[in-house]
């Protein structure tokens, strides 16, 4: 059995990679993907805790996180499509005004 600490370390690394992705990218879609990486990193630590503590509660939370992530991806991508329609760009530096 792999120790719990290994899973949590992997989760921390993936979360940090997601944070770097949000900070260094200018493409709104890649920023979205980085957010998905962060959500998945947290899911991994929840599943690891759930299995090691012998309680299914963590898995239920992961189930709910997946539903929220699906809703978030749908709404976020719709917003990106609308931004691209009005500004012809999805570079986040171009989207610095609430109203044009």
């Amino acid at each position, binding site marked *: 059995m792999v120790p719990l600490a290994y899973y949590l370390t992997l989760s921390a690394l993936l979360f940090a990679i997601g944070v770097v992705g949000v900070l260094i990218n200018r493409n709104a*879609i890649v920023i979205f993907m980085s957010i998905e990486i962060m959500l998945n990193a947290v899911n991994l630590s929840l599943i690891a805790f759930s299995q090691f503590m012998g309680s299914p509660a963590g*898995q239920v939370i992961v189930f709910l996180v997946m539903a929220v992530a699906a809703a978030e991806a749908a709404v976020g991508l719709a917003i990106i499509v609308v931004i691209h329609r009005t500004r012809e760009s999805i570079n986040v530096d171009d989207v610095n005004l609430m109203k044009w």
Partner: protein
Amino acid sequence: MTLAIFLALATVSVISAILVISQKNSVISALYLVVTLASQAVLYFLLGATFIGVLQIIVYAGAIMVLFLFVIMLLNLKRDEFGPDKKKGQRVLAFLLTLFLAIEILAALKIGLSGGQAVTGVSAKLSIGSPVEVARSLFIDYLYPFEIVSILLLVAILGVIVLVKKRF
């Protein structure tokens, strides 16, 4: 044996996550994201969380990634649209801050795992992650959050329709 599989999967998921955030072309990022998500699904199987592992493949690597690829192709992005970053210092600062964040998380982890009661290897029953156990918990203890998620999904569907509709 399990440790070797874990290390292989961890390497694959970390490397492909790094490749996701360092690509110029969004389609290639999306495909590497599928690799990350799939290797995490196998990690869930390794932990014994079979239900969540299957869900990860169907919902994340399947549905959400199709949505991403569909939008990337719909927008028809030029490859050089983003070019080199204008603010060079920002990138260095981002790496530094994230390094501090990672050190902070790992330090918290080390303190948390050394103090208090150790949870390491208490039960790790394989049946915890089975669909039966998860469904029992979901429909008895967590029924209310489950119903709220259904409302959230309905609101998301309506929101997307309202957002992308041109005129009413």
